[in-house]
């Protein structure tokens, strides 16, 4: 599904070049559930953002769904991204001014999907996550776990083939975290959605099929479970 070849990322900081990612090679197949682990500041988020095309590598080759991403123009890249990728954040990043329903609906609007179809899709999703009763609430009225559920529902609404989750359970207690992980596992198993998550918890990492350890901008190890 995706392949990173010799990917590096530098930042210029007052004359010094800081290397964040260093010659990273990574292949992920469709249907995998990958957990990325590593100490803080090791470059996990940067790696995930590059995979998600939110960030560009300084060097290297990036292939996604058989397209050479590093050669694509901004426009086709964002089209590719819009079609296949869904993002889940540690800080949820729901839009405060929109209700649960509207938050989930928003990506569909950007895909120019008709109102009636949107209604059906969002209703399905609310059903599936059992948050129908909360659909008219605003994010501030929800607990962290509920907000993250909405965040995932929003990421899933466009039926992405790849979910990228950066510490999705970082702000949640362990019980809420477990629920989210169960959900990921189910998505991976039943819906064949490829998932790449960053996590600090060994326990959560084990929900995945492979654990990658990142250290100082390099992939230190990769274990299949």
């Amino acid at each position, binding site marked *: 599904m995706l392949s990173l070849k010799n990917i590096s990322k530098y930042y210029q900081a007052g004359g010094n070049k800081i290397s964040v990612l260093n010659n990273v090679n990574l292949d992920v197949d469709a249907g995998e559930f990958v957990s990325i682990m590593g100490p803080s500041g090791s470059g996990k988020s940067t790696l995930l*953002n590059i995979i998600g095309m*939110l*960030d560009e590598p300084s060097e290297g080759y990036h292939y996604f769904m058989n397209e050479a991403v590093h050669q694509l123009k901004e426009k086709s890249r*964002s089209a590719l*991204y*819009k079609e296949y990728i869904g*993002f889940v*954040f540690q*800080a949820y*990043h*729901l*839009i*405060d*001014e*929109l209700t649960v329903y*509207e938050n989930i*609906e*928003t*990506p569909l*609007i*950007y*895909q120019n999907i008709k109102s009636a179809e949107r209604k059906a899709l969002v209703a399905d999703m609310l059903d599936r996550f059992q948050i129908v009763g909360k659909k008219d609430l605003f994010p501030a009225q929800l607990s962290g776990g509920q907000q993250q559920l909405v965040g995932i529902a*929003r990421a899933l609404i*466009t039926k992405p083939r790849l979910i990228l989750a950066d510490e999705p359970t970082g702000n949640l207690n362990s019980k809420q975290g477990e629920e989210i992980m169960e959900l990921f596992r189910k998505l991976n198993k039943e819906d064949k959605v490829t998932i790449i998550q960053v996590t600090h918890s060994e326990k959560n990492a084990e929900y995945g099929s492979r654990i990658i350890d990142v250290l100082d901008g390099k992939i230190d190890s990769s274990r299949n479970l």
Partner: protein
Amino acid sequence: MFRNYIKTAFRSLKKNKGFTLINVLGLALGLAICLLIVFYVIDEMSYDRYNLNADRIYRVNNDIKFGGSENSYAVAPAPMAAALQAEFPEVEKAVRFRQNGSFRVKKGNQDIQEHHFIYADPDVFSVFTFPMLSGDPNTALKDPKAVVITERMANKYFNSTNVVGKTLLLDDTVNFKITGVIKDIPKQSHINADFFISMITLAESKEPSWLNNNFQTYILLKPGSDVKVLESKFPKMVKEHVDPQLQNVIHMSYDDFTKTGSYFKLSTIALKRIHLESNMQAELGPNGNIRYVYIFLAIALFILLIACVNFMNLSTARSANRAREVGVRKVLGSARKHLIAQFLAESIMVTMVSTIIALIIAWGLLPIFNQMAGKELSISMQSLVWLVPAVIAIILVIGCLAGSYPAFFLSGFQPIEVLKGKLAAGFKGGFLRSFLVVFQFSISIFLIIGTLVIYNQLKYIQNKDLGYNRSHILVVKNLYALGNQAKTFKDEIKQMPEVANATLTGYTPTMDYRNSNSLFQTATLDVKNALNTQMWYVDEDYVNTLDIKMIKGRNFSKQMLTDSLAMIINESAAKKLGLADPLDKTLYMPLDQQAKHVKGYHIIGIMKDFNFNTLRENVSSLTMVLGEERGALSIRVKSADMPAFVSRVEKQWKSINPNQQFEYSFMDEDFDATYRTEQRMGKIFVSFTSLAIIIACLGLFGLAAYAAEQRTKEIGIRKVLGAGVSSIVAMLSLDFIKLVLISIVIAAPLAWFAMHQWLQGYAYRQNIQWWVIALAGVGAIVIAFVTISFQSIKAALINPVKSLRSE
């Protein structure tokens, strides 16, 4: 998609109620003022356009240079209208007007003084659009002693408009037959009459002289003819008609006359331009002034700019808080154009609400504005025709303009940068925002300086020594009503113990009696050293009543019988004459058209110049001779109890003639009335300046609040580290004060230059003083500081634990 934008916009606006309120109110206030000004400007520009033939009507003006002075007159010779119609095929019709004072109109046994009389040729109703309700417009003014009156007057005197055939008794002597009733003339008309008297009633209208100019003459051109072509034929006509008469009067051919530098030049002005652009001698009434229209428009634009800048500034400031939303939306797949559309939609929405509030404010302020501007503006169905499209245009243009910066700025964010929270920091010192604040304050300071300069000039006019004393002078008007008893009345008044002195003449600095004349230093009337001068008929009490100083010679004296041929001249006239000692010299005046008879006046005194015209003009030549002129009696009063005195004078008046209306005024009030335009402008300027400053302060207030909010955490940390309230207030205020200082540097020279130009319109002026600029600068800083410190102090007083807890 659009609904989604609106929803977010609406909720986000609701969440930031304070910002939204400041934003909406600031813009609404600015728009309201603009609307009022636009109303005013449209009213000023719509003058005389009610005439269906407006595009084909022109007035013929006469520029005359004679005896060293040149003047433009709105009047032309009596026979010219007929000549134009006879000699030029492109002139379809020509109509003359003549204003000749006011009349007393009999109603029951009461006499009412009416002022809006005008003599007019019979064609007036086919040239101008004065729809006639009853009567025949073609023949109404054909016969002598015929009068056409307006609906208003018909109702006033007869309680009916069906009055054709009835008579009006004027001045208690002459009966006029009413031959027509016309609709009231629209307010937006430079011709402002209630009574049209048939021109043929006036003997002067049949005189053949081309040398006297007394008739406002309007021509209706045939469709398709070129007024420029017509104008080019004027010189030949003038020469043909003036030459023989000139030969008769001053024994000089027209060619020789022009060789001395003198001339008569006819020109035309389009009807629609008269109100705003014409300011000649003998206009039908006071006209507007296109300069004030421009100044108003400039102010409107300034205020609109300030309001828009505010709007942009506050939207941008607030939008920093929405950077995260932009980031999330981008991650969710929003294209940049969607974000731009979203922010524009939001901005347009706010503008729309502001515009609606602005309309309400403008509507509410209209009566006050009318009072200040001396107008009767109203929102009518007619104004809706332009108002509705204008409002839509305003909403779109301002909405897009004000929304464009946040729209393009925000939508350009990189999503991960935003989501990492990097933006807020980099957003603090936005250059554009500083620039906009400077821009706003420059305008405000400009307006403050302008206001101060106008105010100063008005005060200067009030306090300037005019060479005569206008206080404690009661002016009783129109002693013509007393006939030969006028002199008796004066003598009786002079006997009263409260009266210091009194003078009988209409020729005073504050009344509009004027008489220009040409005097010659030789009995042969040699044009070369002619003196073109005002020549006033006064009595021997004039100089003393008005406290005019004599420099040389003496005042008129009752004891000297020869003083009937004596003359007093002012310093300017003395200078113009160019004589070493003008005392006892003689000046000659022709008595008839042919100049067969001349009258010589010998100069017995020279008086100090006094400002008998407005302070816009320099004092010009003035000569005074004895003569009984009954236009007014000016009474210098000793007593302080004016009302009691006035009623005693009125009693005296009634004892002479109980049927005549007693009219009076005070000379100092009349003087002030001369500067009413300036007073008005001054008031309007002050109000607009205040509003501009309020709007600018609203913006600054919002920005300060925003800056304080942005720096809450920093302030908290500083306080924990031991910073005092005052140092934090200073830290927060300094950034803005710096911007205000820059504004002063920019605005002061510009304002100085602009106001210097304005002052050139006054021959007598108070030049701009340094303290005006200093005051404006200090004022702006103080205002800005007060505005900001409100927010700064609030921020500085917050308990640091509160602001740091969220981290």
